């Protein structure tokens, strides 16, 4: 089956189709066996000191292999947003955005904020006329959106319906309705058969300064090493830096049509078109992620070596392949669906809403810098 608008529409409405998935085998940019740096987490595990990686095990056939998390599902969702934002900036994609001008940082959009449109930075921001955003009509519509009628979110923040979101600061009682939308798209990268590699850290000073000598550089007499100067001989325990080597990395990405079918938009035709658009947007996000997402962090660049392709996960029949999913093709399909919005009565905001950061937050940023 080849990816097209008609095929996608049929898949989304078919209750026997659970969704799409793809598994990609990745290798380091430096070649098989090269070291990569996983993400670190603050809490130490057991006796391990310093930053902690997320280790686990997995069965691969008859053997049990050690795995290490390379990119969590939350991080992958953030990268999807970054990839889509790149397409917006290059004018290949239109999304309803909230843009905030942040002093000394620049413009931030809701795709760059941790909680998307539910982020407190937007909740406390002001409109150009000085009124608070949370009292605006857009905010009221977004807060009142529910799974039965999510038209407002489709109009102002469709990625909430694709990547999930939780309006955790709204409501005055634990049982009151809060915007809670489960994700329809999920992706994760895990290193398979991973081994830890210790790497020494140190500092070579070209001026040859002794690190233990105390010198007053205007902030009291302190050791040179405490002021960023001097020689620190490379050692395993001074600046513990870990990396891993692995057999390969596995990236598994999924989009669930069942989640989208639970969301209503005010009528059969509207539901069909809106869900198809959200599916197209999710697939576009994943395609863009796969194309752009090789660089995870410093010393962690991955390249796709092999993939089993996009598979249609059906009820009661073997999985079928869906070919032709590229960023360009998925952009076309998403635009085709979007073009049907007006005739079906669905609204979609194309102009960004400009906001200014709350004064108290600006002041807090200033204090943090100083």
């Amino acid at each position, binding site marked *: 089956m080849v990816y097209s608008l008609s095929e996608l529409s049929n898949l989304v409405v078919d209750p026997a189709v*659970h969704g799409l*998935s793809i598994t990609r085998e990745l290798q380091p940019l430096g070649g098989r066996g090269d070291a990569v740096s996983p993400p670190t*987490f603050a809490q130490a595990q057991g006796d391990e000191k310093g930053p902690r990686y997320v280790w686990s095990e997995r069965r691969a056939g008859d053997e049990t292999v050690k795995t290490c*998390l390379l990119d969590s599902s939350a991080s992958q969702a953030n990268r999807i947003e970054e990839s889509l934002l790149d397409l917006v900036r290059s004018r290949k994609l239109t999304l309803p955005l909230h843009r905030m001008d942040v002093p000394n940082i620049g413009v931030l959009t809701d795709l760059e904020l941790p909680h998307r449109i539910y982020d407190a930075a937007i909740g406390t921001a002001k409109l150009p006329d000085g009124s608070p955003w949370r009292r605006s009509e857009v905010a009221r519509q977004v807060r009142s959106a529910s799974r039965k009628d999510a038209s407002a979110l489709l109009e102002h923040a469709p990625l909430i319906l694709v990547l999930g979101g939780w309006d955790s600061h709204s409501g005055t009682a*634990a049982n009151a309705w*809060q915007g809670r939308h489960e994700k329809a798209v999920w992706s*994760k990268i895990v290193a398979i058969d991973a081994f830890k590699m210790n790497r020494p850290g140190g500092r070579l000073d070209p001026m040859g300064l002794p690190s233990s000598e105390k010198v007053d550089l205007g902030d009291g007499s302190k050791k040179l090493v405490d002021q960023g100067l001097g020689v620190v001989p490379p050692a395993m325990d001074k600046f513990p830096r870990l990396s891993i080597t692995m057999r390969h990395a596995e990236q598994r990405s999924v989009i669930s049509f*069942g989640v989208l079918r639970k969301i209503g938009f005010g009528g059969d035709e509207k539901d069909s078109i809106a869900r198809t658009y959200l599916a197209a947007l999710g697939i576009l996000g994943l395609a863009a992620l796969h194309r752009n997402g090789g660089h995870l962090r410093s010393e962690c660049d991955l390249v796709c070596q092999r993939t089993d392709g996009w598979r249609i*996960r059906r009820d009661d029949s073997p999985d079928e392949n869906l070919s032709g999913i590229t960023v360009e093709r998925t952009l076309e399909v998403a635009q085709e669906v979007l073009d049907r919005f007006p005739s079906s009565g669905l609204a979609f905001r194309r102009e960004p809403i400009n906001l200014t950061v709350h004064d108290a937050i600006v002041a807090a940023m200033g204090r943090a810098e100083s």
Partner: protein
Amino acid sequence: MLDISVRFLCGEFVAQTHDVGSEWPPHPARLLYALVAAWHDGGCNPVEREALHWLESQRAPSIVADRDVPQEEYKAWLPMNSVPNWNKKGGRRPSLPKTRQLRSSRYVGDVPVSFVWDDDPPVKYNAPLRHLCRRCTRLGSAESLAAITVDCREALHGPAWRPSQSGTMLRIPRPGVVLALTGSNAPIPGRVLPCDWRAYRWGYGKQPGRMITVALARGNWPVERAPVLAWQLRRALIAVAEAEHLPLRPILHGHEEDGSPLRRSHLHFCPLPHVGSRYASGSVLGVSLIVPSDTDNDDRDYVEHVVAAWFARGAELAMEGGRLLSFAPRDTRRTLADRRWCRAAKVWQTVIPMELPRHVAKRRKWNREDWRRIAEEIKVACSHSDLSSPIEVEASNTPFTRGSPHARSVRGPHRRPIVHARLLFPDPVDGPVVVGAGRHLGYGLMEPVGTLS
């Protein structure tokens, strides 16, 4: 058997049980809760609700899933809606806890987890159950995207999590759960949804069969002739069924319509001897009719009906030599209690010698090679009884327990050699355990040895 399979699209199962931590295997109650949520999402169809009521009234299902799945865990800050802060206006807001919360996931890959119930649903519930499962998009947290399908299966073989008398406690549905979740507007206190708890154990063993035990009230019978007693009881029940004009079902007589041996398990007639204790007499104190676990309710009812009819006709057996044995319903003697024969254990030993599946060398005295072959035949016999392969096998003509007969002293309708066996299984096995070719007449009745630890 109803089979509801869950394939995790992301390859991971993410769920935690309150006060237990990372959950494995997925609890059956969680599946029912997900189906109730799907019922609500689908517009509250009344037929689907009936299907849910039927499902919650079933016995605890078996769960086809790996014994243990490694977990990946990390700690993260998560707003907790269940631990609210009171704000100045008296309302409650979700609070950020003082410590990071543990998030764990288990990688299951593309292998589905199946929940298997003994019975098939009524035909009218097939479509509603299928629709409910299709609308379910996850099992556990939002990270556990799932594809849930409904199927039927003939039997459950191989390793699985099965209800047991002890083991890992899992939440299971019970009647009233669906009403509690759907019928009342009152919030459910705390975050613990209504359920029952049931012990599960992972293993190859089938579900424990049901024991219908009758006590020997008058007369004595030696354990050396136990298979003869079993044979006579079988004949007596068949005669009663014929006299009552009841159909003669294969569950009772153990043959196909063409007279060939029945390919599936049928009733085991197991004399229960007084063995093991210091004062063991070696006499048969009663007989247990062991109904295999995969027997449907209809056949179970049939067996109970035949036994009741036999009691109505006096419950007597005329044995050879003019001896008359009278039976009564089970009494309180320990030998006749289910727990005596059903307690889970890793070590099991025969109290009545087992009949080997095949002949070994016909010698007055077996040599070492013969005993090695016997040990292999015993392992084969275990597989015929749906037991996992024992990791140690000890075979002997002499009994392992006081009161049990020497193998060469047992008289009965066996045609192949009989030996005593002591087996060590890799995991605790639930009883009753009866192995070997003559198990339907009590050959190979085993007792659990040692404590559960």
